[in-house]
C-alpha cells in the first residue's frame, strides 16, 4: 500500500474539497448504505467500485485445464507477465478465494485477461472454474501481484523448468517477452503429450525457433531429476532459471542449484504451501467477533475460521503475502510448514499468518 504525505491545507485544490463535500452529501442521502451500494446494482465493473471482473468465456486447453477470459473492472492495473491474480468466486453460495497465474498477452484489444486453471483432484475452485464456470459470472479480484517475473534487463540466456500447471506463469512470460528472450530453453513435464497445457502453442514456438522445448511425458518416461535436467541443458550454469511446479521438484532444484553455487540464479514459484507437520489443535476464540471455533492441528486457522462463518482477511493462502496476518493475544500456534511453535502471553499480540498456522492449544485471536 502506498501512502501520500498530506499536503498543507492551503495547497488543497478547491475542486478536491468540492468533490469531498459532494461525496459526503451523497453518503448522507444514502445512509445507512453507501452510494456505491446503489451504483453496484447497475454497473459492478465501473471505476470506483470494489475490484471485480466478469467471466467472458471458458476456453478448454486440455481435458482438465481451461483458460478463463475475464473482463476486469475499470480500475484494473496492467499486470507484469508471470504475476498471479487472486480471484474470489461464489461456489455453492460460498465465496472462495484462490490465486491463479495470468497467461494472456498484455494489452488485449478487448481489455480482458486470462487465467489458466488446471483442475486438481478434490479442488473445489479449480474444478468449478474448469468444468462449471459460466460466462457472465461476476468474480471478485485483487490487483495482480507476484515476483515471478523477468528482471528489467532480460537475461541473455534463460531456462524455464515447469511441471503440470507450473507452465501457466511461464506461458505469461513467453507470450509477452518474445522479443527480449533470444535464447530460451523450456523443460516441461506432464503425464502425457495431451496433458501439456498450451502444448500446441509451445510446439509451434519451438518449431519457429523461439524456444528450445524439452517435453518430458512422465507416464511413459518417468520424472526428471535435477541431474538429468543438467544433462539435457549442458549450459545450465550460464542461464538464469525460473522454476514452477510441485514442491518436491522445486526443492530438488534448489538443492542442486545451491550445491553448484548458483542459488542466486534460480527463481521459484510455489502454488501451495508444503505442509510438513500437524499438531494437536485447540479452541480458537476470535475475541472481537465473539466466535469460537474448534480447530484441528492440521487445518490452517484461516480455513477453520472461514468454515465457521468468520470474515477473515486473506491473501495468497500459502504463507507468502502476509495478507492474512492477525494478532494472537494469547495461546500457541504451529507453523504448518516447519512445525515451529509460536506462543503469546496475554497482551503480547504476536502477529501470526493464519493461512499457514494451526492451533496448538487454545488460542485467542484479536479479530
Amino acid at each position, binding site marked *: 500500500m502506498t501512502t501520500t504525505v498530506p499536503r498543507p491545507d492551503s495547497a488543497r485544490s478547491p475542486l478536491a474539497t468540492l468533490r469531498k463535500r459532494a461525496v459526503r*452529501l451523497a453518503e*448522507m*442521502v*444514502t*445512509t*445507512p*448504505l453507501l452510494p456505491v*451500494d*446503489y451504483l453496484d*446494482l447497475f454497473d459492478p465493473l465501473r471505476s470506483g467500485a470494489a475490484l471485480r471482473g466478469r467471466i467472458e468465456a471458458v476456453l478448454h486447453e486440455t481435458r482438465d485445464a481451461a483458460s478463463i477470459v475475464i473482463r476486469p473492472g475499470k480500475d484494473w492495473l496492467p499486470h507484469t507477465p508471470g504475476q498471479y491474480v487472486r480471484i474470489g468466486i*461464489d461456489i*455453492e*453460495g*460460498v*465465496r*472462495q478465494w484462490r490465486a491463479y497465474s495470468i497467461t494472456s498477452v498484455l494489452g488485449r484489444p478487448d481489455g480482458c485477461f486470462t487465467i489458466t486453471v488446471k483442475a486438481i483432484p478434490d479442488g473445489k475452485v479449480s474444478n468449478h472454474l474448469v468444468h462449471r464456470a459460466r460466462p457472465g459470472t461476476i468474480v471478485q479480484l485483487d490487483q495482480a501481484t507476484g515476483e515471478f517475473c523477468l528482471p528489467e534487463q532480460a537475461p541473455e540466456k534463460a531456462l524455464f523448468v515447469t511441471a503440470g500447471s507450473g507452465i501457466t506463469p511461464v506461458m505469461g512470460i513467453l507470450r509477452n517477452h518474445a522479443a527480449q528472450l533470444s535464447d530460451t530453453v523450456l523443460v516441461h513435464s506432464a503425464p502425457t503429450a495431451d496433458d501439456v497445457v498450451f502444448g500446441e502453442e509451445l510446439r509451434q514456438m519451438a518449431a519457429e525457433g523461439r524456444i528450445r522445448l524439452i517435453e518430458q511425458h512422465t507416464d511413459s518416461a518417468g520424472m526428471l531429476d535435477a541431474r538429468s535436467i543438467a544433462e539435457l541443458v549442458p549450459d545450465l550454469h550460464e542461464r538464469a532459471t525460473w522454476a514452477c511446479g510441485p514442491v518436491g521438484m522445486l526443492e530438488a532444484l534448489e538443492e542442486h542449484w545451491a550445491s553448484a553455487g548458483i542459488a542466486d540464479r534460480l527463481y521459484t514459484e510455489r502454488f501451495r504451501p508444503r505442509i510438513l507437520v500437524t499438531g494437536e489443535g485447540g479452541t480458537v476464540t476470535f475475541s472481537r*467477533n465473539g466466535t469460537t471455533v474448534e480447530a484441528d492441528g492440521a487445518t490452517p486457522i484461516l480455513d477453520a475460521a*472461514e468454515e465457521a*462463518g*468468520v*470474515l477473515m482477511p486473506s491473501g495468497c493462502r500459502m504463507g507468502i503475502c502476509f495478507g492474512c496476518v492477525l494478532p494472537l493475544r494469547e495461546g500457541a500456534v504451529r507453523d504448518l510448514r516447519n512445525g515451529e511453535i509460536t506462543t503469546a502471553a496475554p497482551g503480547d499480540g504476536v502477529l501470526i499468518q493464519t493461512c499457514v498456522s494451526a492451533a496448538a492449544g487454545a488460542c485467542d485471536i484479536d479479530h
Partner: protein
Amino acid sequence: MTVIQKKIDDNPIAHLSAEDIELIGKELDTIRQEIRDSLGEDDAAYIRTVIDVQRKLELGSRAVLLASMFPPAWLVGTVGLSLAKILENMEIGHNILHGQWDWMRDPKIHSTTWEWDMASPAAQWKHSHNELHHTYTNVIGKDNDLGYGIMRVDEDQKWHPLYLAQPLWNFINACFFEYGIAAYDLELGKNLATKKRRQNPEFRAATKQVLKKIRNQATKDYVLHPALSGPSFVPTLAANFTANVVRNLWSHSVIMCGHFPEGVQTFEKTSIEGETRGEWYLRQMLGSANISGSKAMHILTGNLSHQVEHHLFPDLPSNRYAEIAPRVKDIFDRYGLTYHSAPLVTQVASAWHKVIRLSLPNDWLAETKPSNLPSQLGKLWKMSTGGKKVRRAMQARPVAA
C-alpha cells in the same frame, strides 16, 4: 421432573419426560444440520435478489416522491417506500444481523458489517436481540422484548393502576417503534435511574452512537430527500414520515404476534436455571407463535411469520423456514404440544386482547358483562384509587379455587 416442568398452573408439558425433551432436542438438531448442509447457490441467489429488489424499489419510490406534490405520486411513492423500508428491516436487516447469511463469506452481506435503516445501531441491537432476547426468550425479567420493560405481560406481575394506560403506551410504542427499540437497546430506563449509571462511560458512548444514528436517519428522511424534492418538500417529508410510521406499526405488529398471542407461555427466571439444550428448544417452542398466510406475507414479515422455526434456528436462512415448518409441526403433534399459528389479523387481535386484559386487574375483563358493568367499574375505581392493601385484598381469592 425437569426444571422447566416446575411451572405449576396449566403445565402444557406435564406429559413429557426428561427423555422426551432430550429426544425433541435431538430431532431438532438433526433438522438444523440437514438444512445447514444443504445451503447453496439458490439460497445465495435468494438473498441477493431480495436486496436487489429492495434497493431498486427504494430508489424508484424516492424518485417518484420527487414529484410528491401530485397526490398520485405521493401515494405511489409512499406505498413503495413503506414496502422498501419493511423489506429492509425485516427480511434483509433482521435476518442478516442474525448471521443467517454469514456462511456465504460475502463481506457485503455479513452480520459483522451490515448496518440498517433503523434508529438503533446494528451492533447494539445485535446484543440486546441476539444475545438477550433469543437466549432468554419469554423469561420475565430477563427478556426485555416481553413488554419492553414498560408493560405488564403476565398475571403473576402485580397489577398497578399505571398499567391502565398500557394499551396507549403500546400504541405509541408501535408508532415510534424504532426509537423504542433504540431506547431499550440502551436499557434507558435502568441506565438513567442513578447518577452512577448515567455517568458510566460505556453508556455514554452507546448513547452517543444512537444519537448519531438517529441524526443521520432523520437528516436523510426529513431534510435531504425533502430538499431534493424542491417544491415538493413538505409532501416528501410527510411521505417519509408516513413510511417510517407504517414500517414501525408493521414491525411492531409482527413482533407482537411472535410472543404475545394468548396461549403463548412465559417463564420464571428460576425455571431456566440449569436448562439443557432440549429444554431451551422446548422453551422456544412454547414461547413463540406463527402467522399463517401467503408467500408475500412471509417475506414482508421477514419470515418472522415462522416465529417458532426462527426461534428454534435463529441463524438458519429465513427462506428455509417454510420448508422446515411442517417437520417442526410434526414434532409438536407427536409430542402433544400446541403449535400456535393463525392469520395476522387473528394474532394481532389476540395479542392486543392480552395487552388490554393485563392492563386491568386479573380476571376483571373475564368477569365483566354488560349486566354487571357498573359494579365492575366501581371495583376498578376502588382498586385504582385505593392503596396497595386495598388492591391486595380485592385480588385475594380462596386458595381452593
